[in-house]
């Protein structure tokens, strides 16, 4: 089996709090996967571990056969749920920065998407609206020809039109041989584009299946199943 991501007995503790508990997971290439779970389920912790900005307390994580390192960071394209842009930079400078550091970055694609949004490339990032900053972050992430895209809450807190823009940007621009891992609560908005879903609860994977398989097995949409699994 061709594995892009493998988590084995992955555990992460923050002091006395268990964020991930013996999590096991395998992701294959060429899939769009929804990472779904309630607040505090461990989604962001798992994403941070994949991106190499957290170390597991125990267990291991392999990305394309390697533990998280500078090497894996060159094949993982990450969109965090915070605005990480340097305020003093212009749009052009941040694109140049991505071109400098990532050999898989496609600057022409980034410029064309920036132009389509009507954003001036000489604009400082500090003067862009919150929505445009989020779009620039997404464009930077999706302009990479990465093997794994990891998007943490990309459609949270944006209006429906922007949500559609974000989803279409993801679908139209990702490397087709890669996988896209999308963490979100807004399942109904992305259900139609997902190939697989992972339900995560109390730091453990409680369900991992294809969307079609789930619909067939449970006779309901992923959104309905989510409400069923995670109901209080």
């Amino acid at each position: 089996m061709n594995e892009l991501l493998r988590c084995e007995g992955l555990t992460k503790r923050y002091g006395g709090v268990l964020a991930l508990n013996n999590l096991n997971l395998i992701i294959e290439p060429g899939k769009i996967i929804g990472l779904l779970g309630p607040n505090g389920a461990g989604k962001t912790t798992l994403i941070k571990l994949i991106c190499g900005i957290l170390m597991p307390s125990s267990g291991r994580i392999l990305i394309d056969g390697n533990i998280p390192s500078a090497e894996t960071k060159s094949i993982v394209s990450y969109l965090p749920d915070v605005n990480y842009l340097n305020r003093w930079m212009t749009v052009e400078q941040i694109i140049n920065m991505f071109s400098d550091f990532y050999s898989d970055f496609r600057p022409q694609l980034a410029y064309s998407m920036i132009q389509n949004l009507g954003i001036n490339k000489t604009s400082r990032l500090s003067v862009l609206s919150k929505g445009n900053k989020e779009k620039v972050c997404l464009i930077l992430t999706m302009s990479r020809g990465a093997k794994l895209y990891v998007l943490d809450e990309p459609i949270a807190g944006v209006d429906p039109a922007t949500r559609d823009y974000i989803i279409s940007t993801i679908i139209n621009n990702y490397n087709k041989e890669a996988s896209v891992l999308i963490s979100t609560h807004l399942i109904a908005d992305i259900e139609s584009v997902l190939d697989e879903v992972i339900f995560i609860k109390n730091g453990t994977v409680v369900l991992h299946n294809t969307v079609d398989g789930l619909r067939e097995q449970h006779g309901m949409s992923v959104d309905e199943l989510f409400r069923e699994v995670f109901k209080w």
Partner: protein
Amino acid sequence: MVRKLIKYDFIPLLRLLLPAYLVLFGVALINRLIQLFELVEDSSDSFSMIYEMLFSSSIVLYCLGIAVCTVMTLIVCAIRFYQALYSNEGYLNNTLPVTPSQHIFAKLLSSLIFCAFSIVTIFLSFVVLTFGELNIEIFKAIGYLLNRAIVADAANTFMFIIEITITIIFGYISMLLLLFTCVSIGQLANKRKILLSVGVFFGIYTIGQFAATALFIGLAISGYAVHEWIENNPAQFFHCFFVLLFTAEIIVSFTGYFLSKYLLTKKLNLA
């Protein structure tokens, strides 16, 4: 990769520090202009008072400017280290395909470049301040003293110049790595990260000062041997002093580097 990291560190550091360097130049220039209106013997009392007040104010400002320029460079370098790696910017910088060592080296090198800039700025501002005959006299005096030292004992003079230069360079390296370590320890806290960093820095600095004071008191009360050593062979004593200082700086630098690297690799705590 280190070169690329330095490139993207350089601009924010320049944006933050250039105004401070320009202000120092400005104060030196104002002081030099005030000197052009130097008092003549028959100046009135009120003019004399105003002149003295302006002159002494600008000299005080200049001295403050030098202190601010030196300290601010170090503080800004520490702030940039925090911002780039432990604030929201850390989500970008820590997911770049570079190792924590490369991050630390890049930050260290770009900070050292700006420390060198601050020294050059202070020197050039001094040239501006003393521009004219005074300038020539000062450099003549320095040249004369250096020449006398070389004639008296060339080997030791050159050794001292090398030792002082190395001590200053490693002094900056150890201070920057100590600051990076304190910032890295501070980010472990979930709240008030900067406050913890400052607290850790002053804690370590105070311990260092106590250790140095204890060492010097120990030397002073060690009896006749040290006094005899200084009297009979002062050059050898001071060479040993610089070697000791240099060794302490190397130890602080290595400890700071490995601790920062460990915290950046294993204990990154992005909010």
